[in-house]
């Protein structure tokens, strides 16, 4: 037996499982916060549109803060603020909360743009056909405005998916954190980073291409 002690060990097949697991966690936190954030953001967008002055004075500046402060600072701040008000949140919960609010702040603008994209004459036509306000929103504004801003929503969603890598500062082991851990152990940074990058790319590239394709088709 070799009497040497090996400090580093090479990249082993079960490290792939470790990375796959981490990739699933990236996916899970992204999907969760994008869906919650989209619902919340659409609500905010509607409030910004309908609430006119009241919303412009109260809601808009608050949402603006989330767009003007780096996400990483928001995460650290919230993670350390939660215990002060007596909440005990694990990194996953804190990350989800902040990513959700961050998504909502971005989606709010998109959603407002979508509502504005539906012309007033069309909405008046819907109302004069006897539709209620909510029917008009559900059957006229949602399909038409939603289609107009769908590409920008995809952009926001992909952005949040990529930004979910930042939750690693709180200690949540998502894909990039897992890669970092493996790099420290195996000392094979290039291979591992290439794998992690390929995963993000494989997720983001087809979706963004598909969104561009839809945008071009709908533009005609």
């Amino acid at each position: 037996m070799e009497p040497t002690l090996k400090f580093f060990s090479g990249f082993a097949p079960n490290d792939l499982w470790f990375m796959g697991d981490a990739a699933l966690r990236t996916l899970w936190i992204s999907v969760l916060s994008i869906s919650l954030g989209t619902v919340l953001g659409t609500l905010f967008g509607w409030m910004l549109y309908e609430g006119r002055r009241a919303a412009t004075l109260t809601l808009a500046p608050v949402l603006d803060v989330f767009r003007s402060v780096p996400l990483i600072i928001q995460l650290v701040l919230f993670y350390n603020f939660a215990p002060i008000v007596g909440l005990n949140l694990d990194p996953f919960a804190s990350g989800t909360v902040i990513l959700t609010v961050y998504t909502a702040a971005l989606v709010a603008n998109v959603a407002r743009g979508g509502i504005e994209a539906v012309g007033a004459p069309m909405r008046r036509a819907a109302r004069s056909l006897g539709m209620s306000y909510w029917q008009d929103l559900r059957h006229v504004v949602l399909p038409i405005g939603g289609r107009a801003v769908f590409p920008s929503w995809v952009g926001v969603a992909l952005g949040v998916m990529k930004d979910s890598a930042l939750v690693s500062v709180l200690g949540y082991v998502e894909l990039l954190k897992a890669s970092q851990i493996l790099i420290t152990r195996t000392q094979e940074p290039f291979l591992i980073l290439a794998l992690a990058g390929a995963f993000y790319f494989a997720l983001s590239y087809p979706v963004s291409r598909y969104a561009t394709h839809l945008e071009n088709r709908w533009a005609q």
Partner: protein
Amino acid sequence: MFDYNFHWRPVMKSLPDLLEAASLTLQVAVLAMVLGIVIGLCLALARLHLRGPVYWFATAWVELARNTPALFQLFFFGFGLGAFGLHLSPYLIVLAGLTFNCAGYLAENFRGGFKAVPETQIRASRSLGMTPWQAYSRVVIPQVFRIVYHPITNQMVWAVLMSSLGMLVGFRELSGETQFFASRTFRIFEYFAVTAVIYYAIVKVILLSSRLMAARLFRY
């Protein structure tokens, strides 16, 4: 109200250091933007007018920059290049990562801007006796500049926000400096709250000065 005593004094004491770090943040962001604009312009023109390897290189750059997390790009310049024995200083890692990212995003904006100027204008100016260089610098570029002005402003804001990732590669710009002080005093919340305010102020100043400049530049 809370079972927690806020200690703001250590933060106020190190405020000069934080502001100095903020100027470093601004410096690296501006430098990355200047480089990013130059490279982005080259990438956009390469994707519009060239074929073959240069086209593919430019396309690969743009798609990689846009479809992978910024943090991944920083890690790549940090650890990834280490695999080839190339060790950059934290400053260079952040600068290279930001430049790579900004160039990719700006290239797409520039490409859209160039596409928006009809080709007949170039032919018209050529037939008026302008050289190709004159046609570009006097006819095309001023129009493109107007189109990409707001995207450039947005990208500048993103560059400032993204530079906060320097914290994770050991670069002591505003976020890194904040983390350094926070971990020394354990006043994490207080420090990061002040840093968030500084970032917010920087972003607002950028947006305001951009708007003032636009009012002067695009008067007619």
